[in-house]
């Protein structure tokens, strides 16, 4: 059963325990507080910040209110990064996590081309720019913990059950139950269908576009787009090759042959 996480934005209090738990578990260095024009700290995901809570000041029911959204890798059902990688350095594991082989499975396939960063629709993979031989880093859905039957570190740190771990199907059902039971929720589960569905899903009482989510996106997975183009390759190779060969022999008959070795000479200018 593929696992998933349901994030209920209306329950999050913005305590950042999940951030700290992630840093602790993976022994990631702290980032200096950089709250510039918002309360987001760290300001964005990075090679050492795999998850963070983004703060949103919004107007709801005529009052200014805060909402907090935990951001991390969405762990797509059909990940763009996996399909974009030309050495297959990413892997969508059976139980949900999308892992990066060089750091997570000790298979150093990565070339460091960063096409995954172009491909990811959520701009999640980050690069260790300051290292001589950088890795791509991102949330790995604590796949080693999952294999031991544990919850992800961030989930076990959450004090309000704003993030809930379980089987993706059950969580999706529960999400719709909550939405249908309470009218305050927006009638949408973000991640149910976005780009073919993601393991991490969100429900909220505030429209998603006000919370920094990319809305109105394709329900088709990214890999299916590129595959639609790539699958023509063998036909073009054979077909175009046949046409070219035929044309070459057909037109050869009609043209007189030149002796190329007499035609050209090195440029002579002393």
């Amino acid at each position, binding site marked *: 059963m593929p696992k998933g996480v349901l994030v209920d934005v209306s329950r999050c209090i913005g305590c950042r325990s999940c951030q700290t738990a992630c840093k602790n578990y993976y022994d990631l260095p702290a980032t200096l507080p950089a709250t510039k024009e918002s309360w987001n700290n760290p300001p964005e995901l990075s090679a050492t910040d795999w998850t963070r809570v983004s703060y949103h000041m919004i107007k709801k029911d005529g009052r200014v209110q805060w909402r907090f959204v935990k951001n991390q890798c969405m762990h797509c059902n059909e990940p763009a990064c996996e399909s974009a990688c030309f050495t297959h350095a990413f892997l969508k594991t059976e139980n949900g996590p999308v892992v990066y082989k060089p750091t997570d499975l000790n298979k150093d396939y990565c070339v460091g081309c960063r096409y995954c960063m172009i491909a990811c629709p959520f701009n999640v993979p980050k690069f260790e720019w300051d290292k001589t031989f950088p890795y791509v880093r991102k949330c790995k859905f604590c796949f080693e913990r999952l294999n031991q039957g544990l919850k992800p570190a961030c989930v076990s740190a959450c004090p309000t059950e704003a993030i809930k771990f379980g089987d993706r199907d059950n969580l999706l059902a529960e999400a719709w139950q909550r939405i249908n039971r309470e009218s305050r929720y927006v009638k949408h589960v973000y991640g149910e269908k976005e780009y073919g569905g993601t393991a991490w899903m969100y429900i909220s009482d505030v429209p998603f576009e006000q919370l920094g989510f990319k809305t109105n996106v394709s329900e088709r997975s990214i890999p299916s787009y590129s595959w639609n183009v*790539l699958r023509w390759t063998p036909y073009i190779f054979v077909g175009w090759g046949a046409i070219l060969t035929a044309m070459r022999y057909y037109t050869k008959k009609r043209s007189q042959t030149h002796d190329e070795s007499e035609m050209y000479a090195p440029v002579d200018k002393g």
Partner: protein
Amino acid sequence: MEKQRNWTFRITIYRLIMIAFVFIAAGAALYRFRYGLGSVTNLNDHWPWGLWIGFDLLCGIALAGGGFSTALIVHVLHKEKYLPIARAALLTSLIGYVIALISLFLDIGRWYNFWRPFFYWGYHSVLFEVFWCISLYTMVQVLEFGEIFFEKVKCAPLQKILHFFMTPLLILGIILPTLHQSSLGSLYVVAVDKLNPLWWSMIIPFFFVWSAFFLGPAMVTIEGTLAAKAYGRKPELSVFQSLTKVTLWMMIIYFVVKVADLSYRGVLSTAFNGSFESNMFLIEMIVFVLAPIFMYAVPSIRTRLWGVLTASILVVAGVIFNRMNVVFTGMSKGMGGHYFPSVWEWLITIGMWSALVLIYCFIVENFPILPREEHIETGSHTSIGTGIQA
């Protein structure tokens, strides 16, 4: 054949300056290999791809399109009047690809792993196709160039083997660039919702390969004129003129398909909404597509050297402009942040293009690339006739 000449390479002040640029670039490149990308580039998590990929790789490969379009015209369609430019086109293309491969190598973070895609097949990635085709095509071009090489450096058995394989090599030498010129566009198919819809399209591979092809004749015109000027020869004006037909019709088709694609996807109106992207798009279309179409279509412009040269410069600049729009303009909203290449990124780029010029000069001065002078005279008479009639 004449008797074996010694190797020559004239040193002038310009060449010395370019050699200096090459050395600076080589130094910066070594530093980058030792201390990583962050130490020399301004690349960041918002802009994983910058000048080296956007300009050196995407534009370099596109500008080398002269190689495969000329090969198709001369060796497959046997339009022999274009033979005088065939070898020069092959040479520029070959050097362009070598430069592109070097910039790719510079740009990958874990460079000691560059060989991985040959063994770990991520065949579902567009980059996989690009990588294989570019590597193979560079090899094919080296072999094609071998035929020229052995005209100077005599080695009969090798020359014979090469000659035997020339037809399959030529055919491969057109299929492979067709595939990867288009896949360089397909790279951005994954950037749906990221790349501005004015440039994103499921048929972006078509736009890339088509523009790389029609850019070929324009590039040959510019190179030919430059080489003629540098070496005090007569430019092959007649060849340039009759090539304009190819570019003209291909550009008209390009424009029509572009408009049809935009209106089919219902985003044509966003070209006129006054945003930065839409203005850049309009400049691309009007200055770099419609203007050269007009110049190529009017005989009194097309038949003059300045006319055909100006139009060709517009075409080449237009393809560069288009690639820059795809890599930077169109992606800027989707990626956020900002990026401007660092001094070192510029210096390495300048060094690589200087190396291209230097290698070109060395090779045409030592190998039979450009037509013999007396051959042009006779050749140009016949082709002026065909050029104007057509």
